């Protein structure tokens, strides 16, 4: 066991002062040290995308980074999507379109979609399919997830918080 390091993670605009071993992944630190358990951990080797978070505005796999590497970065997790008890447009659209069943993949899909629509608000259908192929869902068959994200894109609400 190597020495723990004192680091600060900026998550959803709040600083979290934590002590972690360098080998601790960002997703484990978010859950165990920051207490933010909305980010799920699936495969732990970058295949499933359940742990997707935003780092400086772009979606990344939080299991493929060590927490110490995320110092000084602006992190956003699913806990940061809703504001004042009001769901983010994507969360509402996932609900309305039955884009989740068991929900394990949902926080990853929401952050993937949120980051993508913020970067590319006018993304075309083919590119959106390519982006959403990044994450695995074993319940929905993907069509309802696509429908939900397209609905938000079409409504131009990606920036609405």
């Amino acid at each position: 066991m190597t020495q723990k390091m004192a680091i600060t993670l900026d998550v959803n605009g709040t600083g979290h002062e934590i002590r972690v071993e360098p080998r601790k992944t960002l997703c484990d630190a978010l859950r165990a040290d920051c207490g933010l358990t909305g980010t799920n951990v699936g495969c732990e080797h970058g295949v499933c995308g359940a742990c997707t978070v935003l780092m400086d505005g772009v979606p990344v796999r939080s299991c493929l980074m060590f927490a110490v590497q995320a110092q000084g970065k602006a992190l956003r997790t699913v806990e940061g999507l809703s504001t004042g008890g009001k769901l983010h447009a994507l969360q509402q659209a996932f609900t309305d379109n039955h884009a989740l069943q068991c929900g394990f993949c949902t926080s990853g899909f929401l952050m993937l979609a949120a980051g993508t629509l913020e970067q590319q608000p006018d993304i075309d259908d083919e590119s959106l399919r390519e982006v959403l192929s990044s994450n695995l869902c074993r319940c929905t068959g993907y069509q309802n997830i696509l429908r939900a994200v397209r609905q938000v894109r079409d409504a131009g609400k990606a920036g609405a918080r």
Partner: protein
Amino acid sequence: MKAGSFEWHPARSADEAVALLAQYAPQDGRVIAGGQSLVPSMALRLAFPSHLIDINGVDEFAKVRVEGGELVIGACVRHAAFHVTVEPGPLGRLLVQVVHDIAHYPIRQRGTFCGSLANADPASEWCLVAAVLGAKMVARSARGTRVIPAADWFQGIMTTALAEDELLAEVRLPLLPAGTRAGFYEFSRRAGDYALAMALVSWRDDGDAMRDVRIGAGAVEAQPRRIAEAEALLEGHPFTPAAIEAAAAAASAAVDPLEDVHTSAEYRRDLVGTAVRRAFAQAGS
């Protein structure tokens, strides 16, 4: 699974990075850039370095630029940088075409071009680009800098000419002359999976004849390479469907394909011909 213990050494400059590497490479130290192959290898305990020299904070490694007829790609330039054209010529357009087949969107935000070259997976798209276009790899260490041509770089599956105390500081790709046409095609069973075969082709149309024909295959043998037998059938000849068909068949016959539980050598050999044909069909001007 979780990665084993290691000490983390963030570097702020290239000089600091090579100094740290000189110190820690003999103690099982490794460089981490995007980490999109290294971190899963560590999680699966296929890799367990004692020290990681982290070069993500080295600003000089984050740049891509054109210099002396070459596209110079720094050690920390992410795959996602190539979602848009990084230079206005045929090379910039080819790289946009290729990048979409690399893993998935979030992986491309973090993984790096040079990391793919250093990892040298047989199914790496950037390794095929480097092999076919004749990239030069610039290796830095505390001992100095040396340039390694693509022909000497690849030394088998996930093995390169890089010494343990060297880091791949940049890759230099020759710009493609105006009028060059280039195409890429890869086949995988699911979006984002490792390719089972891929092909990259480029040529110039000189009146009725194809010139500077390059045909390469990746994800087929231990390392990507050009296929001289196929190129020779097209060099100096007009672009016709029959000629492309003959070149695809020659490429298919020339390779010595890897086998795995999902893919027989025979199937992979057949895919090479298909990939070459489709790469020509996809070629933009």
